[in-house]
C-alpha cells in the first residue's frame, strides 16, 4: 500500500493507511481520508462498513492497528480522547443522567478549569445556539429525544473543538424532527464555522447536509466527492446502489440498448415513462421498451418497476403532475417505453 506519510497539512482531519482489526475481522481496511477545514463532511455506508470505527479512531476511543490519524496536521494516533481537540455527539447522546442540562453542558469546561462565571456564560450561550434557553435546570430524563440531541450538541460545541464528530446524530429521531434537525445542524455549522464530520447510513441525510461525502463499504472508502458527484457519477456499482437506486444496464442489455459493452446506470428520476411505444424520440435520447411489473403510488410521485425486453429491470420515478392514483395504477402489466437523455446515462468503472 502506498501512502503519503505526511498527509495534507491544511486538513482538519487526515487519515493515512488506517486499518483496524478486531480479532480476525478487519473492520477498517486501509482508509485514506482528508477532511478540509470548515467542511461538513459525511461518512456514509451500511452498518458494518467501518464508518463508525473510523469516527471512533478519530475521537480516540479506538487505536488504529495500522496507519496514522492527524488532526490539524498534528499526529494524534496514540493519544487518548482527553488529549484531542475534538468533541463527539454520540448516537445515544450519552448525557450524564445524574446531572442537569447545565451541568452536562458545563462538564467539559469544568474539566478544563474554565472559571465558573465564564463557564456559566458559555454554557448558556451554547444552549441558546441550540434553542434550549430555560431548560438548564432539567434532567436529561425530562427531555424529549430532540431536546436531548440538542443538549448533546451544546455540550460538545461549548468546548469550541476544531472538529465536531457526530455519530448517527439524527438516527434516533422521528422523520419530521430529523428533517428539522438536518436544517438546523447545517445552520449551526455555518454559523460557528467549525468542521463537522458525521456518520450516517441514511443516503438522503448525507446528500442533503454535506459538502462532501465518503461512501464506505466493507472497511474501505469507495468514493469521496460532493453529493452531486456521488449521486450523478457513482464510481462503483456499490455507490450507485447505496446512494439512490442502482438501475444497472449491463451485459447483453447494454449491447442491445446502448450498442456498447459495459455497466451503465441511469437514475430513476431521469427516466421518462411513455405508453406510446413508437412516438418520435429526440435525437439525444436513448430508450428501452419493457413491461411494467409494479406500480407504487407515493403521493407526489409514482415509482414504476419495469422489466426490460432486453433483460434487466429499471425503476423510474415520475412526478404526479397530472396523473392521479387511479390512472397510474392502471399501468401495471402495461407495455411502456423508457426514454432518457444520453448525458444522464453513466458508465460505472469501479470494481464489481
Amino acid at each position: 500500500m502506498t501512502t503519503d506519510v505526511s498527509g495534507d497539512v491544511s486538513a482538519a482531519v487526515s487519515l493515512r493507511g488506517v486499518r483496524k482489526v478486531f480479532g480476525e475481522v478487519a473492520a477498517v481496511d486501509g482508509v485514506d481520508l482528508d477532511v478540509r477545514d470548515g467542511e461538513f463532511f459525511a461518512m456514509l455506508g451500511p452498518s458494518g462498513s467501518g464508518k463508525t470505527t473510523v469516527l471512533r479512531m478519530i475521537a480516540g476511543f479506538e487505536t488504529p492497528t495500522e496507519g496514522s490519524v492527524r488532526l490539524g496536521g498534528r499526529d494524534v494516533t496514540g493519544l487518548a480522547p482527553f488529549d484531542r481537540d475534538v468533541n463527539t455527539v454520540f448516537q445515544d447522546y450519552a448525557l450524564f443522567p445524574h446531572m442537569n442540562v447545565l451541568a452536562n453542558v458545563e462538564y467539559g469546561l469544568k474539566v478544563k478549569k474554565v472559571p465558573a462565571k465564564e463557564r456559566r456564560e458559555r454554557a448558556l450561550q451554547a444552549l441558546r445556539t441550540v434553542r434550549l434557553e430555560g431548560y438548564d435546570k432539567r434532567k436529561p430524563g425530562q427531555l424529549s429525544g430532540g431536546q436531548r440531541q440538542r443538549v448533546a450538541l451544546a455540550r460538545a460545541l461549548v468546548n469550541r473543538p476544531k472538529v465536531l464528530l457526530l455519530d448517527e446524530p439524527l438516527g434516533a429521531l422521528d422523520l419530521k424532527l430529523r428533517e428539522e434537525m438536518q436544517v438546523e445542524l447545517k445552520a449551526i455549522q455555518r454559523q460557528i464555522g467549525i468542521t463537522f464530520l458525521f456518520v450516517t447510513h441514511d443516503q438522503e441525510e448525507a446528500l442533503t447536509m454535506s459538502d462532501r461525502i465518503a461512501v464506505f463499504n466493507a472497511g474501505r472508502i469507495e468514493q469521496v466527492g460532493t453529493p452531486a458527484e456521488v449521486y450523478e457519477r457513482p464510481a462503483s456499482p456499490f455507490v450507485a446502489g447505496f446512494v439512490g437506486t442502482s438501475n444497472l444496464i449491463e451485459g447483453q442489455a447494454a449491447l442491445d440498448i446502448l450498442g456498447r459493452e459495459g455497466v451503465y446506470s441511469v437514475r430513476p428520476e431521469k427516466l421518462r415513462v411513455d405508453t406510446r411505444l413508437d412516438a418520435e424520440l429526440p435525437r439525444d435520447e436513448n430508450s428501452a421498451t419493457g413491461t411494467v411489473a409494479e406500480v407504487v403510488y407515493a403521493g407526489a410521485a409514482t415509482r414504476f418497476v419495469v422489466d426490460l425486453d432486453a433483460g434487466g429491470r429499471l425503476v423510474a420515478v415520475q412526478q404526479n403532475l397530472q396523473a392521479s392514483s387511479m390512472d397510474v395504477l392502471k399501468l401495471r402489466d402495461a407495455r411502456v417505453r423508457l426514454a432518457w437523455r444520453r448525458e444522464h446515462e453513466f458508465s460505472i468503472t469501479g470494481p464489481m
Partner: protein
Amino acid sequence: MTSVTSPGGPVRRFAGLLHRRPSIRLAGLLSIPLLWLVVAYLGSLAALFVTAFWTTNEFTGDVVKVFDLGNFQDLVNESVYRTITLRSVGVAIAVTVIDSLVAFPMAFYMAKIASPRAQRWLVIAVLTPLWAGYLVKAYAWRVMFSGSGVLDWFLRPVGGHAPGYGLLATTITLAYLWLPYMILPIYAGLERLPNSLIDAAGDLGARSFRTFRTVVWPTVFPAAVAGSIFTFSLSLGDYIAVRIVGGRSQLIGNVVYDNVGTANNLPFAAAVATIPVAIMVIYLLAVRRTGALENL
C-alpha cells in the same frame, strides 16, 4: 334464571371463574407467601420483641412472663454490651469497606472490560463460593490463619507471621464470605451504565479518575449501597465465623447464642437480638435516601 357459565369441563369453568373474579386470582397467588410472611416472619419478630421484655427466675431458670425493662437496663448500663455492640458495628463497617474496595475493580472488569464469554464465566466464578457450605469456608480460613497455616507460610519469609485468631481474622473471613453479595449488585449497576457515558467523559477531557468520580461513581453508588446492606447486615448478625476464627472475641451474635445456649436466658438473648435489628432499621432508613433500595 341462567347464570353465566363457561363451556367445557370443571377445569375450564374454574379458569373462567378466575377470569371473571380478579380478587380470587390475587388471593390464590398471594395466600401462601402472605401466610409465610405474616406468621413465620413477622410473627417470630413480634415474639422476639415480646420475649425481650420478660425475665427468668434466677433460681429455677424458668421464663417469667411479666413485662420488665430489666434486660434493656442491663444492656444500657453494663459497659461490656456497649463495647460489644460498637465492636460488632466496627467489624460490619470494616467488612463492608473491604468488600466494596475489592468488589469495585472486579465488577468493573466483569462489566466493562471482559469479553461476553469471559463475563459469563466470571459471574459463575463469583457465585460458586455461595454454593459451598458456610462451615467449609469458615474452617478453611481457620486452617489458613493457624500458626502453621498457609498465611504463616507466605508471611514468614518477609518477616511476618499469621495474625492468629481474633477480630482481624474474623473481619477477613466475613469479608471473604460476603464478597459476592457486594460484587453482584455493583456488577449489575455497571452493566446498566452505558459505555458511551464513559466515552463521553473522556471525550470532554476527563481523565480516568475524574471520569470515575463524576460519572461512574454517582451511577454505581446506589448499587454499592445495595451491596452494603447485605455485607453489613450479614456481618452484624454473624456468630459462627467469630467462634471459628475469632479466638475469644465476642460479637453481638455470640452473646445471643451464649444466652440461648449455656446461660439459658432466652429473654435476655431476645433483648440482645433487638440491637442488630434496630441498627439495621436505622441503616435502611439512612440508605433509603440514596435510592439504593431500588437497586436491590
